[in-house]
């Protein structure tokens, strides 16, 4: 298995260690806002273990994915709220 892989976060390529989660890839890409709350507040991961849903992003077109529980795959396209 290769040591690293490349995916895109908000259209920019980012290379991450193999086994990293999408949450980590987003942080590595320098993005601190993962989603906007129902009243528009910026949010980012809280629990890190799939409980809180604060890290929800769109992965390969699939909305509301918990980025902390999904492993990065080569070529994956990740979008956060802006």
């Amino acid at each position, binding site marked *: 298995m290769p040591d690293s892989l490349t995916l895109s976060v908000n259209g920019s390529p980012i290379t991450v260690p193999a086994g990293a989660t999408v949450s980590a890839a987003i942080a590595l890409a320098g993005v*601190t806002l993962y989603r906007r709350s129902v009243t528009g507040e910026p949010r980012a991961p809280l629990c890190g273990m799939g409980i809180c849903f604060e890290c929800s992003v769109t992965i390969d077109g699939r909305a509301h994915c918990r980025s902390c529980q999904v492993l990065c795959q080569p070529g994956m396209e990740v979008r956060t709220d802006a």
Partner: protein
Amino acid sequence: MPDRDYDVVVIGAGPAGLAAACRAAECGRRVALLDDNPHPGGQIWRNLSGKPPKQAARWLAAAERHAVELIPGARVFDVPEPGRIAVEMFDAECRLGYRCLILATGARERFLPFPGWTLPNVVGAGGLQALAKSGLPVAGKRVVIAGSGPLLLAVARYLRTHGADVRLVAEQAPPSALLRFGLQLALRPAKLLQALALFGTRYLTSCWPVSAQGNERLESVTLRRAAHTWTEPCDYLACGFGLIPNLELAELLGCRTGEGGVHVDDYQMTSVESVYCAGEATGIGGLEPSIVEGEIAGYAAAGNLRRAQLRFPARQPHRRFAAALDTAFALRDELRRLPRPGTLVCRCEDVTIERVRACATWREARLHTRCGMGPCQGRVCGGAVEFLLGWQTESVRPPVFPARIGSIAPAPGPAGHVSDRKRPVSR
């Protein structure tokens, strides 16, 4: 993924679940081991490289040897009928049948609301550790660790060894309680060493965060200790106020719960026939008791009561430790006054403390404010209001996790049946 049937299905692949699955499979049972996380190991054995710690490696090897079917990235969102669970994966769903079910659903952190706690980079203590283990870079980051419990020390040690600049650890408990707990620690050398390894990091007792500040993300945290209040600039605030067991599935199944966990008998069986529970979901105790409980549940679910009995003695000493933990790290009253007007309690639906306080019960708050009705279904705010307002927050309905329509649709019954159903919850 096709529907399948097993003798034993274990939910949760942390230490308790792994041990349970191995012991049941070693008795010749066909066993499935499910976990919501992408890798087995639970939170304590979670790591980036996929190369587990020694103790975990032994259990993983045993699971492979005994042909345990590991199904990671799988969340159980319903029990559509007795003996059958509904499971959703990233891009699939299925129903799995079981003769015996073992719940090893572990625990989550208790979060308490204070002004600024919803800012990006305010994370759980275990949360930041989990994220770091999943590849989040912490080297060179200024981290303040706050809240309560021995987990804070473990997190501090982990983050320090991974290059984080841990500015201080703020423990809300008073030193007198910790001293008493320390005497108990002396009986457990491994944990004592872990505490000592922290030497060099500021560890402040009777100290807690009162607010977090930042524009779009965390920039500093304000801490209080006695009459002294000051502000620490930081990149992360890792903050958790102890652990609470994950009881949603047990309650959905109608298992009796209370006093901090699922009620079980000597064989780890719950009040529901053929449903067992092991590990943190039966009460917070840590790694060793989780493994022993898992082994007992696994043997018992496989029908080998004699081998289960042989493990009883190993379970006893750990229970004292769990009791000592509760006393030492009891949350202080001042923490109930942390939320200010406008502070959000429910982060999914952005419900403020004053709107929740205007209600008399959890049920009323859910109906009138949508508190606890968002995607996390009260897993975060429930633990907070339990402490802040003394409410009982159980009100479990399927699906216990948000699920895709396509996953729910195959469930038997007329349209709307799944969401309208209310399960018995006994306490």
